[in-house]
């Protein structure tokens, strides 16, 4: 488990993180979202010991990271701006990781490289941006580290490969009990893979929740009632958002689906459709409910 408490980091007068606190549970995929410059990359660098925090503490499995080689064996970090030695082939890079990580599995690496059809004998510097990202991901996965950190995880990767990579990440958590922290400024990228989400805004965690709870506590319905109706008709519901178009209204409601369904049926609607709710919508309305305009945040 990663426990972050009141972490602060500044560069000169520029305060990037202030009093960030959050907890990342083991064996889960944690998504960290935020606009560009929100401090996502800085937070990941602090967790991985690349940067040193000005204040606060970060503990991994109850231990402080500071220059702790044994603890660093449990972590692997793939930054947004990837780095490979210019003279190294993918295989050379794998050997580098093998030299550095005790649990690096060369077999896993070969398997994943083959799955992604990456030429391991080719210099990584000659690969495209997306291919470099794939290389970095499979190298990180092959380390078998307990905690994996990916900054702008799928940047430059095409949708097909993105799905393959998501499966590989999911497999890592399921089969190897890994904990993955991934950042993105795009919620859609994370919605079908993350268990938990944290929203970083102006150097602090603004909102944090697990996606299952969010999804079970919010519904999106399309409803039409006999005769004229408006938002007042739904005052018994916890309406987060109401929009009427013609005779059909779309509502985002907080509450358990079963309870809402029972209550709606009692209103004898002409139309009652349950629509899928996206992670972005969950976030938008959850944020609006606490007074933030989501589009200004992400």
């Amino acid at each position, binding site marked *: 488990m990663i426990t972050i408490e009141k972490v602060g980091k500044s560069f000169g007068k520029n305060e990037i993180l202030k009093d960030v606190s959050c907890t990342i549970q083991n064996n889960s995929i944690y998504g960290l979202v935020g606009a560009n410059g929100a401090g996502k990359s800085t937070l990941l*660098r602090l967790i991985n010991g*690349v940067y040193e925090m000005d204040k606060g503490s970060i503990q991994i499995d109850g231990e402080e990271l500071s*220059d702790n080689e*044994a603890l660093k064996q449990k*972590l*692997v970090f793939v930054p947004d*701006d990837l*780095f490979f030695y*210019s003279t190294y082939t993918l295989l050379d890079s794998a050997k580098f990781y093998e030299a*550095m990580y005790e649990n690096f599995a060369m077999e896993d690496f070969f398997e994943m490289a083959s799955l992604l059809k990456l030429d391991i004998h080719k210099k990584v510097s000659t690969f495209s941006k997306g291919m470099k990202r794939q290389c970095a991901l499979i190298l990180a996965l092959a380390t078998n580290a307990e905690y994996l950190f990916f900054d702008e995880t799928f940047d430059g990767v095409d949708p097909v490969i993105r799905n393959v990579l998501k499966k590989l990440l999911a497999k890592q958590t399921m089969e190897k009990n890994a904990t993955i922290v991934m950042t993105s400024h795009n919620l859609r990228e994370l919605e079908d893979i993350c268990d938990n989400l944290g929203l970083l805004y102006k150097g602090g965690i603004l909102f944090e929740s697990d996606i299952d709870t969010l999804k079970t506590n919010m519904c999106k319905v399309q409803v039409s009632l006999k005769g004229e109706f408006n938002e007042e008709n739904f005052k018994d519901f916890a309406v987060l958002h109401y929009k009427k178009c013609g005779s059909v209204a779309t509502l985002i409601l907080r509450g358990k689906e079963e309870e809402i369904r029972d209550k709606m049926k009692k209103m004898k609607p002409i139309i009652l459709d349950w629509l899928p709710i996206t992670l972005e919508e969950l976030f938008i309305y959850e944020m609006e409910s606490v007074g933030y305009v989501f589009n200004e945040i992400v």
Partner: protein
Amino acid sequence: MSLMKLFNYKYFFQNIKKSASVLALFIGIIPILNVIIFLLLVSGSPNGFLATLSNLSILLFIGMYIIPLILAYTLYNFMFKRKSIDFIGSMPISKKSIYLTNTIGGSLLLFVMLLLTISLMGLTSLLLPNVYLTFPLLFDLFVIFLVGYLFMYSIVTLAFSVVGNFITGLAVALLLLFLLPYFQIYKNSIVYSGYYSKDAYIVCHDEACIPDNYTCYEYDYSCLEHQRKNEYRFYLYESANTNIPIFSIAPLFAFFGVEGVKWVAFDKGQLFTTGLLTLFYFTIGYFIYKRRKLEHCETSFYHFSVHLIVKGLTMFPICTILYEMVRGQSFYANLFALALLLIYYFVYDLITRKHIEKIKVSFLAFGVTLFTSLGICFFIHQLPKETVTYFASEDISSIQIKKYREEMYQTETYMVKDKNTIHQILRYLVQGDSKHTYNVDITLSSKGREYETNILLTEEQYSTLFEKLEASKTVSQESIEGAYALSIYHNFVTQDFSWYKDKVSAFLTSGEKQSGTCLVDTGLTFYRYHHHKVESIRISSCISEELQKKIIQDNNQKISEWYNKNRGHFTYVSLDEELEGMEDFDFLESRYAMRIHQYIYEAIQKPILLQEDMLIISIVGEQNSSARAYINDKDAFVSFIEALREEAKNTQEYQEYKQQLEGKVRGEDT
């Protein structure tokens, strides 16, 4: 945690592997280049190559500034780019482990490279017949450069530990290396400026030092007045106390291009202090690196104030140079200098930080740096200057006299304490012969201080003085036994020279005086590697006739071999003594060179007779290599030349030459 636990060889291997070209440079190019230079040097010495610390150091010396810098950059360049910092910084390796791995690994790499370079040089020397090289010399060379390379590596490592980009690292390394020596040189150049060609006087209370041939110009009343008081003028160049003390710490500080090679010497004290300083720098670097924030990269320093201090220090030498240039000049010259400094100050920011920041603070810092630098310059100019002008001859306790020995590629210093020789040198010092050939540096010791000047000597004075100095050396049997090379004139004997060793040893043991008449003193010089330097021991060939004969025979045989190998490549022949009627020898030599060489070649095949008259002929070959041939039967040689003259005298060229020669003689007469 032990050092070896912190040495992560896997990381080091990968760090080196990523720069295969650098590895090639270390393991391949440097040792091979060194061998090539070595071969060039050897081929440039057809009469034999006597290895010394200096002549083997050329590439190693230059490499001392470059190789550790490249190595440190290879190992630490990840710190200068954000994305490589993310990569290495997140790896399971601690900062102290990175530092110690790079320090130990880098040092080992330098060790291996030097070992390879010097071993290869040693092996090459074994394959070449004309090279004189001893194992202790190679070992000393290895030790000197290992210490030097590690020292430079420690400096660059320390510099890279504190900076965020390469260019600032280079600036810091240069400051660590040269700022202090520069300051000392600058200070000395001001404080001792009066010494350059300063008039000084030797006061001769002792008649022995009064020169026989001292002249003042007719109207130089000051000179005449001094002469009346037995004060004789000479030019004092500088006080030897202006030596740069920090040079004694590390040879690296004494960098003046390839000239610096001449300072390469095995000095235990120097090596020890350099070693200590290396350890100190490595240790400081360790503590700084351990606390280093990796986020600090792509800019000069984390703290702007440190950037300002370092920038100010780099400005100091420029400031002093400009100060000396524009001092006392017009207002516009000063303004121009100020503008140059300002440009430097802000261009430095652009280079090291990519932008100019905190303009107000920068201007303030510029002002402070400028006034501090100018204050230092001003203060140094106010320091009292040395004013010693009169040197009583009796106060001169010793004189060091330097002779550059071409074959050793090094200067040999003779310490003269004998009063008679001191007086003789003082006479040379004040009378300075206008027909001089040699300009010899000397250092006078007077009342515990040293002063540098020079004496001008004619060929004869030079050889007389150095013969005397050589003869004053104590020659022990041990020094002869330990010799590894021997030269007769400039020719190194390639054969086993045990015969000579035995003869000279026997002579030294018996304590006999020289026997018989010495017709020709060809001189015999033994070389041994003693007290970490090549030492020459000159023995007069006059100690026995047998020795003289053997020397001349071996010498002639050597020339004979030389002729066989290089027939047709000899450039010049001259006679070592003036023979009557040989004024046109130059002409005949140029016209009938081949025949003259053939004559000499045949003459030196004949056995030499010491009792007969002997003619010494100098032969100059390619690359200015020269030798002296000894032949008997002067008359036969004169007859041979006469025959050539007979052949030539009717030619127009000879007539023209004769006319020119006569015209010259008439001109000299008038």
